[in-house]
């Protein structure tokens, strides 16, 4: 294949002329800033990027990226995105969604997108609240959440997005945090290079309706103890003094302190290709005794839907030749009236 030189872009090339209209202080600003910073460097012609969103605060995202974009209807971005990608697999398709859009009204589409493994990237902004409709609990809100629609506390147990993605058969599952700028850039780049559906959960602070939802993972004082930064092939170490770790006690993960009893060698080593480890990590979410894993939980190679679709088309062409509709019209039992 001839080497194609992609134009060099700057952040300005990816910034649209539309005024950004999120609430001041919203975590979405940080995500947008990182996207506008890193997308110019992905080595793709700008016109090949397509951002598809549903409804919600996060879904305004495409308006602010100077790429192709489609702000669609509530929960349906995965369907639209699938149609775009299958029609033109050359495009780099990004779904931008939230916990309500992607996991509640659009939950069905999300799981099916993940199981099919189209080469689409999903950025799910999880703020554990409904922002655009002004503060109702979301499918990721913790049990007992007091909101305008649940004055006595919510009754439904929350979805764990990472566990849901794994259960749906996702081939790339990761998590990052809105204010962790460098990490987010790295995650976006990794997601782009993954062939298959990449599911990125982004912890995103809604400073109006759910301020501090992720404070333990973002506050300076607590975050070292509440975040487990994942690195493939590395032991699961965390803590301000890097003296805590995750270890398996039978089939159960436990937090241990490195010292007399345990050494680093006793810790579980992260393996992005191991479904059991990914599953175990995902389930540390909502567990007060554990840090929240941040990084790539799971990354495997699996056939991509659109490749399989094109392979079938090519096979059919090989078997039957590139047919014409006239052939089909003329086929079967015909007779001539004179």
């Amino acid at each position, binding site marked *: 294949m001839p080497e194609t030189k992609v134009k060099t872009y700057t952040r300005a090339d990816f910034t*649209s002329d*539309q005024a950004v209209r999120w609430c001041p202080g919203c975590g979405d600003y940080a995500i947008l800033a990182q996207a506008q910073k890193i997308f110019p460097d992905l080595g793709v012609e*700008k016109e090949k990027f397509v951002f598809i969103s549903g409804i919600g605060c996060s879904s305004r995202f495409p308006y602010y990226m100077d790429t192709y974009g489609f*702000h669609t*209807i509530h929960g349906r971005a995965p369907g639209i995105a699938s149609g775009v990608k299958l029609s033109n697999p050359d495009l780099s398709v990004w779904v931008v969604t939230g916990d309500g859009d992607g996991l509640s009204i659009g939950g069905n589409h999300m799981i099916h997108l993940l199981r099919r493994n189209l080469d689409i990237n999903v950025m799910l902004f999880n703020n554990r609240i409904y922002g655009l409709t002004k503060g109702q609990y979301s499918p990721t809100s913790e049990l007992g959440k007091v909101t305008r629609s649940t004055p006595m506390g919510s009754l439904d147990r929350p979805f764990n997005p990472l566990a849901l993605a794994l259960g749906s058969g996702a081939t790339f599952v990761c998590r990052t945090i809105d204010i962790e700028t460098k990490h987010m850039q790295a995650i976006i780049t990794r997601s782009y290079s993954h062939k298959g559906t990449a599911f990125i959960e982004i912890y995103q602070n809604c400073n109006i309706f759910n301020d501090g939802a992720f404070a333990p993972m973002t506050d300076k004082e607590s975050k070292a103890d509440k975040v487990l930064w994942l690195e493939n092939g590395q032991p699961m170490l965390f803590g301000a003094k890097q003296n805590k770790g995750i270890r398996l006690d039978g089939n159960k993960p436990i937090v241990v302190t490195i010292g007399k009893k345990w050494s680093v060698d006793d810790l579980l080593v992260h393996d992005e290709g191991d479904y059991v480890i990914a599953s175990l990590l995902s389930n540390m979410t909502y567990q007060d005794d554990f840090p929240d894993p941040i990084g790539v939980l799971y990354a495997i190679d699996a056939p991509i839907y659109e490749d399989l*679709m094109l392979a079938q088309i090519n096979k059919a062409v090989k*078997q039957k030749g590139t047919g014409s*509709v006239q052939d089909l019209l003329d086929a079967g039992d015909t007779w001539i*009236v004179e």
Partner: protein
Amino acid sequence: MSKTTQKVDEVVIRFAGDSGDGMQLTGGRFTETTAIVGNDLSTLPDFPAEIRAPAGSLAGVSAFQIKFSSKDIHTPGDAPDVLVAMNPAALKVHQQELAPGGTIICNANAFSPKNLKLAGYEANPLEDGSLDDYYTVYDVEMSNMVKRACVDMKLPPKTVDRTKNFFALGLLFWIYDRPMQSTKNWLKVKFAKRPELVEANARAMDAGYNYGDTTEIFTTRYTVDKASLPAGTYRNVVGNYALSLGLAAAAEKSGLGLYYGGYPITPASDILHTLSAWKHLGIKTFQAEDEIAGVTSAIGAAFAGNLGVTATSGPGIALKGEALGLAVMAELPVVVVNVQRGGPSTGLPTKTEQSDLLQALYGRNGEAPIPVITSATPGDCFFVAYEACRIAVKYMTPVILLTDGYLANGSEPWQVPKIDDLPPFDVTFADKSKIADGQFMPYLRDKDTMARPWAIPGTEGLEHRIGGLEKEDVTGNVSYDPDNHHHMVETRALKVEKIANEFEPTEIFGKKSGDLLLLSWGGTKGSCRSAAESLQDEKKKVSHVHLRWVNPLPNDLGEILIKFKNILIPEINYGQLIKIIRSEFLVDAKGLNLVRGKPISSADIQKTAKDLIG
């Protein structure tokens, strides 16, 4: 004993039996052969929603009606002349619709005490004489006969018994003087991997044919001359298949990729099946997780520059409603097929109805006008599918195509069209040359069609955002401006109305004025045309106008309507087009509304017409 041959103009046969008796297949084979013989024909399959209702039960009866003729015909016929009843339940369900003096051919072996009880017969109607006063009854021991025909084949008894439909087919081939060769060829393909089934079914068919030829029971054969159809090459075609061909033709002619996203639903699934088998044409089919993903993926495909298509039935359209509004707002070319069935809710999945017209016109939130085109016959599905695609792209709008269960599964002889003869279908995607003052304007409209440019992802310099929020005209930016919203509501409506400017003048079958105008849309065309012909033969001043597009309506329709003293609108619904006609044209139209899950008969229309005009 010598056999006589009698020439007749037309015959209506209904094959009826248990769901497991292969009646659709038998009817299909008789149809193919009748087509080859050169008769005009029309068919009406009628099968239960259950895949296998209990054997022998009334609920499990499946039927297939064919009318064939030496004349040009428009419907699958009202009352059958011949009823083939493979068991007591089939007789019970269909006997009452048989024409007086009609013929009943039964599989006598199936009239066992158990089957008679299941069908609710106290006594065997073949033996108690209850039928003899009204009908000519032939009780033929079909099961015994196929057993004897296959006696040396060492096949399981059940397998042998399953060939009895081919005995019936063979007998009917003899009675109506039809060749068996094409069915024998067909058997070889159908059971390519089971040569013993090819042999068994062929023997059964031969046995049926010879039974007619040699026994003294059947004394008369009937011949139906070739119909005088316009010269050309013909084939038999089923509605859903023709529709699929129309979509494929539109893609080929326009050079657009065809993307079909859909979810299985009766009676639309065959469109998905058919297109899925045409991968060699580059057609992409996607069985989505639900109806919503079916249509949204088609919208995504349209955004990306493909011909986006989805097909469903009424319940699916209900689910797609919000997405259709998005397609209206985003002004993208998507074709949405509704193969209508009985409703509301799950309704009558396998029965036909025309009750989704108002849903097609209005079933969305906000002012969301969508052009609505309808198919008149199984073969017409090809042309309307092509036209729906052409209009969708030309005007950058979603288009709804209404067919129905009767059209979808029914068939007719069809003059094979030439792709080269279809109307031109050119597509121009926007490119950099469309940029004025350095800024691409996604809602800058074509002066003639009011279509916005189709600027597809991957095109350098045309990056833009669209969405479901109200658009500012020209720029496409989000706008909450009151005057802009009013302007855009008006613009979207005007754009659809403009489509009528390219319609041919409306064809009036009959005189341009008179006592009565029959006005039809969709699958009732055939019954209305037959009724009009009969009434005109009786010197009644009756004409017929058929609407292909229901939105927009033809520009000349109002002038046509006022020339008639009465207007009658037969519909298989509780009165839908009539509401539109009365409100649009302030005329006192009358309705004939029979919602029985089957086509309205020509006889019903004639009777109502006579009640109106005397």
